[in-house]
Each structure stands twice: as structure tokens, then as C-alpha cells.
């Protein structure tokens, strides 16, 4: 379970460029909850994920992961409980390490890294099995460099990598945005499958209102660093994309003319 309490994030504090990216956001995720986060550009979606992961430091407020206050912990310390997939398929893996080595690295997330072989037999077998499930034919190419894969393949592997070690929360930052529609669907399906199989707690940022309502158990809309809408359960299942746009419109107090949100 993770909780964000009255979290504020300020970029370039004390300069003319000061920007308050998050303004007192409070949010609690129960175990196994799959939360989709939407909002326009600059609403604070990625900042929220960054703050939970430890890439962005909080100006005030607290972040609790697995019952611990991690607000002052660096990203590498939080990684024990926080798994992530980045938007850029190249960001989440090492192109010049082999596929197997990338997987082994991710399998070691959260545990002490010793001097034993990173690709010892039982682990190599486990990794092979996990990749075979994808049915992408990659299990026979585990020795090849990660850089030889396409963006879609790399992102699918990044997702698998994020589920190799246990986590309190999986952060997905528009992880299908850089992919073509076919690959995006594949990765999205995989997300659904893995989340259900491991009972993951997921916080997923998306640009698509459709996705935000179809996927997961709860939808949150951010606007100018604040939570505008937070729906789940029955209320959410009745909600349509039009309702979301209405809510958004009301908040903005203006017509949403050519926003990206409408088109996706």
C-alpha cells in the first residue's frame, strides 16, 4: 500500500521560473488497486510518478511506501518497493548489455547484490520461461544485446523486468505513448495480464481517456497540480469519455477545442 499526503512539488523555487507542479496532492492506493492518471500536459502526472519514485524531491508533504516514510529517500533506496517503466523504451534498459543481463539486473531489484553469478542456472531458467510466455521468440535471443530489439519489444521486456522482483507499486509513465498502435496494444494487454497475475498495485499515467476508463479499477484526473476527479467502483463503470471531458471542461471553465485529450 502506498500513500501520498499533502504533497507539493515546486520546480525552480525562488526563481522567476518557479512552477508549482503539485499543489497538496493526497492519494492512497490500496494493495492490488490499478489506478489510471489522466490530465492535460503540465497537470503534474509525471511529476507525481517522479515524486513517488524519488526522481523529484517534495517541497512539502509525505510519501509512504509499504508503511515507511520514503519522502527523503533517494530513488535507488525506494527501488526495493517501487518498480517502474519509463515512457522512452530506451530509458528502461541498457542497450549494450544482453537481454538476459538486463533481465538479471531487474530480477535483483530490491535484494542485496553479492558476488554470485548474475545469470546462474536457476535464474537463467526462470528468465527464459518468463520471456517464452511473451511468445515474441525472444527466448532464443537472450544473449543478444538489448539494443538490437525494436521499441515495442524493448518496452514489453521493460514491463516484464518490472515484475521480476516484488514491488509495492508499479509506476507506468505513459509507457505505450512512444509505440505504434499495434505494439501499444500488445504492451497494454501485457500490462493487464501481469497486473492481474501478480496482483500488482499500479499507478499508470496515460494520455488516453478511453484507456483511463477501460483499464484498472480507479481513475484520477489531475489538473494544475491538484486532483480534480477520483472515481472508482460503480460510479466509474458508468462514466463515459464525454463525462470526463465535461469534468475537465468545468475545471478549465472553457471549451476544450483542439486538445490532444479529445483525439485519443
Amino acid at each position, binding site marked *: 500500500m502506498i500513500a501520498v499526503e499533502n504533497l507539493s512539488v515546486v520546480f525552480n523555487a525562488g526563481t522567476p521560473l518557479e512552477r508549482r507542479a503539485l499543489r497538496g496532492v493526497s492519494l492512497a492506493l490500496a494493495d492490488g488497486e490499478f489506478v489510471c492518471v489522466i490530465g492535460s500536459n503540465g497537470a503534474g502526472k509525471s511529476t507525481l510518478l517522479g515524486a513517488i*519514485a524519488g526522481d523529484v524531491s517534495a517541497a512539502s508533504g509525505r510519501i509512504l511506501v509499504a508503511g515507511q516514510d520514503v519522502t527523503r529517500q*533517494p*530513488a*535507488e*533506496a525506494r*527501488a*526495493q518497493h517501487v518498480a*517502474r517503466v*519509463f515512457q522512452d523504451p530506451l*530509458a*528502461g*534498459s*541498457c*542497450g*549494450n*548489455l*544482453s537481454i538476459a*543481463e538486463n533481465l*538479471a*539486473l*531487474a530480477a*535483483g*531489484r*530490491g535484494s542485496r*547484490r*553479492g*558476488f*554470485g*553469478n*548474475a*545469470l546462474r542456472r536457476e535464474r537463467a531458467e526462470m528468465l527464459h520461461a518468463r520471456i517464452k510466455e511473451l511468445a515474441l521468440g525472444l527466448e532464443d535471443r537472450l544473449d543478444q*544485446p538489448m539494443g538490437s530489439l525494436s521499441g515495442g519489444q524493448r518496452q514489453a521486456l521493460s514491463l516484464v523486468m518490472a515484475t521480476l522482483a516484488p514491488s509495492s507499486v508499479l509506476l507506468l509513465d505513459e509507457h505505450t505513448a512512444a509505440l505504434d498502435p499495434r505494439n501499444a496494444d500488445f504492451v497494454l494487454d501485457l500490462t493487464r495480464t501481469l497486473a492481474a497475475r501478480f496482483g500488482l498495485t499500479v499507478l499508470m499515467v496515460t494520455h488516453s481517456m478511453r484507456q483511463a476508463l477501460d483499464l484498472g479499477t480507479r481513475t484520477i484526473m489531475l489538473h494544475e497540480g491538484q486532483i480534480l476527479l477520483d472515481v472508482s467502483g460503480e460510479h466509474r463503470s458508468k462514466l463515459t469519455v464525454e463525462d470526463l471531458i465535461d469534468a475537465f471542461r468545468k475545471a478549465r471553465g472553457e471549451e476544450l477545442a483542439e486538445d490532444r485529450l479529445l483525439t485519443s
Partner: protein
Amino acid sequence: MSQIALVGAVELGLVYALVALGVYLSFRVLDFPDLTVDGSFPLGAAVAATMIVSGFDPWLATFVAIIAGGLAGFATAFVSVRFGVLHLLASILTMIALFSVNLRIMGRPNVALLTQETVLTPFLDLGLDDLWVRPLFLAVIVLVALIGLAWFLRSETGLAMRATGANPRMARAQGVRVGAQVIAGVMLSNALVSLAGALFAQTNGFADVTSGVGTIVVGLAAVIVGETVMPSRRLWVALVSCIAGAVIYRLAVQLALSADFLGLQASDLNLATALLVLVALVLPKLRGRALGRRARA
């Protein structure tokens, strides 16, 4: 080229193979251009020579030299990681500082070891030809370093170190303490280079404060020559290629120096090395550009 010159070149190549492994670790694995080695090579020589002359066991002296190299690496990496000083600049500062440190350790610009007992003495006493004992001894040391390094880089910690150099953001997201990895890697790199310095002093019979000049370029040359001769993505091949590169480089230098028609002098060595490294660095780029042109046409 005489047999003595040939074997001598191989011997020196094997000493610099340790430097090449160290440089591979900092440059290639960690992506941390580290000029500290110009100081840690003579540091190893100075520590080992001074201790041996003072009557310490040569193995202990060599061991302390390795530790000293590690500390030099720590100084560079700590300044860079903890205070955000540019890695290149941090390493230059340590390198410059080490010049004074090395003079302090030896108390004079050079120390002769010719009549002293070194790690090689027991092997020389076996009655084998001196000419072959030294390269054989060094080959064993290099082999041990190779196996150790290959084993380390394939371990969980070693993999974390490789990820640190390749994609620090990803490494952090996987829970790797990136700063600690950089410090550990640069320490290990300089420990290897310092070991090379200690062995250089003992095989050549002296330690000299200026013997470190250009160590980084020679190490880099060895790495690049090795990569050119044995291109491979496999880790252990890459490590072997560093060793091969160092030996080939030394042989090439010896060949160039003994070929009278070239008119090269020993003092031209640094210029030739710099040009060699430059060519090796530029060639792949030019080749890539030519391929690009052909693809477009």
C-alpha cells in the same frame, strides 16, 4: 628485432595489460574517463620500491601498492560523485597531487631496486632463463587478474556496475547505488594500474616519478587496438582483447623503434601513441560516414 627486444616488448606489454584492464573498467564499463592512472601507476611503483628498499616483504609491498592505487581512485571518484566535480577534472587534480605524493613516498625522484629481493627473485633462483621468467611470471599475474575481473563483471555487483556506466537512470530504478558503484569501479581500476606500476618497478629494477606520463594514453591505445583486432560484444573476449591490445601495442612500438629506416627515436613515442589513438578513435566514425553515404546513394 632481436629476441631480447621482442621478449622485452611482450614483457612490458603484459605489465601494461593490467593498465589496459583498469582503463577498460573506467572508460568502457563506467564511462568515466579517468586520468588518475598517470599518477597511480608511478604510485604503485613508488610504494612497492620504497617498501622493498626498506626491507619489507616484496609481496606485502605489492599488496600495499594495490591498496594505495585504490585510495587514489577513491580520491578521484569521491570528489566527482560527492561534489559533482567533472570526472575528467577530478582525475587531473588527483593525478597532479599524486606527483607530489610519489616524490614524498620515495623521498627522491627515483629508487633503484636492482640488488633487492623482489616478488620475482624466487622464480629467478629456479635456474630458468631470466629472459623468460619475467614474462611468464607477468602472464600468470595477468591471467589471474583477467579471470578475477571476468568473474566480477558477471556477478550481481559487476552487472550493477556495468549498468551504472551504460544507463545510470535505469540502474537507479533497479535499486543500484550508482555513486557507490562509480567509486568502487574507479578504485578497482586504479588498484589494477597501481599493481602494474608495482610490477613495472620490480621487473625493470627501478621506480621513477615520471614513469606515469602517458599511462592513460597507452592504456587507451591498448583498449582500442584490442577492440579493433578482436571486435566482440562478449565480455571475456573484450577483456582478453585489452591484454592482446597492450602486447600488440608494445610490439608495434618496439618494431617501429628498431626499424631504422623510419628514423624514429624513443622520444617520438608519445607523439606516435597519440596519433595511433587518434586514428583508432576517428576511423570508426569515418567508416560510419562512408557507409551512410553509400546507403543514401
